[in-house]
């Protein structure tokens, strides 16, 4: 059984069909890339699955349960976490506090108001470990707003990862960072995600990144799924090349015009 399944999922904005009858299945431990031109509905699809947007109709099945009407926090507790296209961290908290807070929440400790957060050794050790994994150990005392864009992107992902999700959505984790940092960020994310056996769905525009890291690629256009397959299958798909690049041919994705 698929870890996540959407059934005829729809979300419209007036006349615009942001998510149009999407039937998508994500298997456990898959690393899936969601690609498509701007306005294809990738982020909207993630927003609907993660409960930021309500669907017009359709169902979302996660671990065999219908979660369509669950709230954001209920879906987080069920095991769905996400990062955001525009960095969404706690700017006035340190990198350490950001990650520690996610751990406190996962452990159900945020309701405790009679204990001191900074005396919880288990959380401190785990938060330190996660910052180390994401290469942010040296920045642990810096506030979210004081980090560089690439570091903020990593912290955004680290926050979601600290929840130990079954399914992690990463919305353009390398957007706005330099080409040099892009590979480093994706290497870090891929190694952490694969190392922990987390199922990941990533929205990405850089096809080099997509082909390099994905087990499967889902191509969206005008709110619907246009094609899906392995990186090799997608590379050879002329309709996909035409939609994404405006050109086709056997080497469309490698040709540098």
């Amino acid at each position, binding site marked *: 059984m698929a870890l996540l399944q959407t059934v005829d999922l729809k979300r419209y904005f007036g006349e615009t069909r942001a998510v149009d009858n999407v039937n998508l299945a994500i298997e456990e431990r898959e690393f899936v890339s969601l690609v498509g031109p701007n306005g294809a509905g990738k982020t909207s699809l993630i927003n609907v699955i993660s409960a930021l947007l309500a669907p017009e109709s359709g169902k979302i099945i996660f671990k065999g349960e219908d979660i369509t009407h669950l709230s954001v*926090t209920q879906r987080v507790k069920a095991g769905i*976490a996400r990062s955001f296209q525009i960095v969404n961290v706690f700017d006035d908290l340190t990198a350490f506090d950001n990650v520690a807070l996610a751990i406190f929440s996962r452990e159900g400790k*945020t309701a405790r108001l009679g204990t001191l*957060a900074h005396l919880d050794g288990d959380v401190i050790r785990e938060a330190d470990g996660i910052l180390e994994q994401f290469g942010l150990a040296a920045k*642990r005392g810096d506030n979210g707003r004081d980090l560089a864009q690439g570091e903020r992107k990593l912290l955004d992902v680290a926050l979601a990862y*600290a929840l130990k999700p079954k399914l992690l959505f990463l919305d353009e984790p390398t957007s706005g960072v330099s080409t040099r940092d892009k590979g480093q960020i994706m290497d870090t994310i891929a190694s952490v995600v694969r190392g922990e056996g987390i199922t990941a769905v990533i929205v990405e525009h850089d096809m080099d990144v997509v082909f390099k890291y994905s087990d499967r690629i889902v191509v969206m256009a005008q709110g619907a799924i246009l094609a899906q397959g392995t990186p090799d299958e997608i590379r050879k798909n002329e309709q996909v090349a035409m939609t994404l690049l405006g050109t086709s041919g056997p080497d469309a994705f490698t040709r540098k015009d």
Partner: protein
Amino acid sequence: MPAARLGPSLPMVLAAAAPVIVAFALLPRIVDLYQTELLIYGLTFAIAALGFNLLLGYTGLLSFGHSAYFGMGAYTVAFIVRDLHVQSMELCILGGLLSTLVLSALFGYVCVRHTRIFFSILALALSQVVWSLAYKFFWVTGGTDGIRVPRTGVTLLAGLIDFKGSGSYQKFVYSYYYYVLVLFVVAAAVMWVIVHSPFGKALQAIRDNETRAGFVGIRVRRYRWIAFVISGCFTGLAGALWVPLNGLTTPEILYWPFSGEIVFMTVLGGFRTFTGPIVGAIAFNYLKVYAVASSQYWQLVLGCVLVVLVMVLPTGIVGTLARLAGKLRRR
């Protein structure tokens, strides 16, 4: 590698707080009776400002309705003393806390469904409902005359200390000073633990980014509600402590300008620091008392101070001092 902490170390906090507490304990020996009385007012307002700042500084919610909880605490003590003939200040405080708990739970449940200006206006509107009840139901509340709570009508420490007979005023001021000081220290310690608890961290996360807070699994509305209730209870405690000192409670204490004064105190001290509201409340009390004594245009004086404060010291007294100290350390 230096380990970043989620909060300051406990010994350091105790080392910083101890001299201040000792200084406050010695102050009545140095200053006169009137100044001691002003300090009691300052300390009660500081408890209110501490509670208020849990919402403003830590949760990001600006309430213009905290006069309701201060007034509820005050009126409950007045009702208990007048109608139940209870003299024990401890029972009065308990009653004040319970009534404020109920009121803030009810009002908070409605208010936390909104944020920003909508939250502020709703909090203000609800507080004015309480004010109008106190104003209009004069056969219960005494209307504009209010309810008297004479100091001879209360006892401290379960009747161990009373204030009857000659020299009672002096005895009351000195005893009540230490009584309020102890409660203030307890209230500040409880609030310090709350803001440094995982719950406090969750509130700060909600303040910074409520969308993301939801996406790390924090139930934003529920946490705001809990913060609102705690905040209301602290303010209610302050109101309960204030009324025997003032000797009288009137609807004025429920009226919206007093909510504005609590905001003023907190902003004056600095709402992004723990100690800011404490400093702000004590400073504001002196400022208001001396402005009232020196000019009939005291509201104008306070207004000018507020304008200057916002323009010159946007981080408040403590925020500015902390910034200057940081600059000096870097040199």
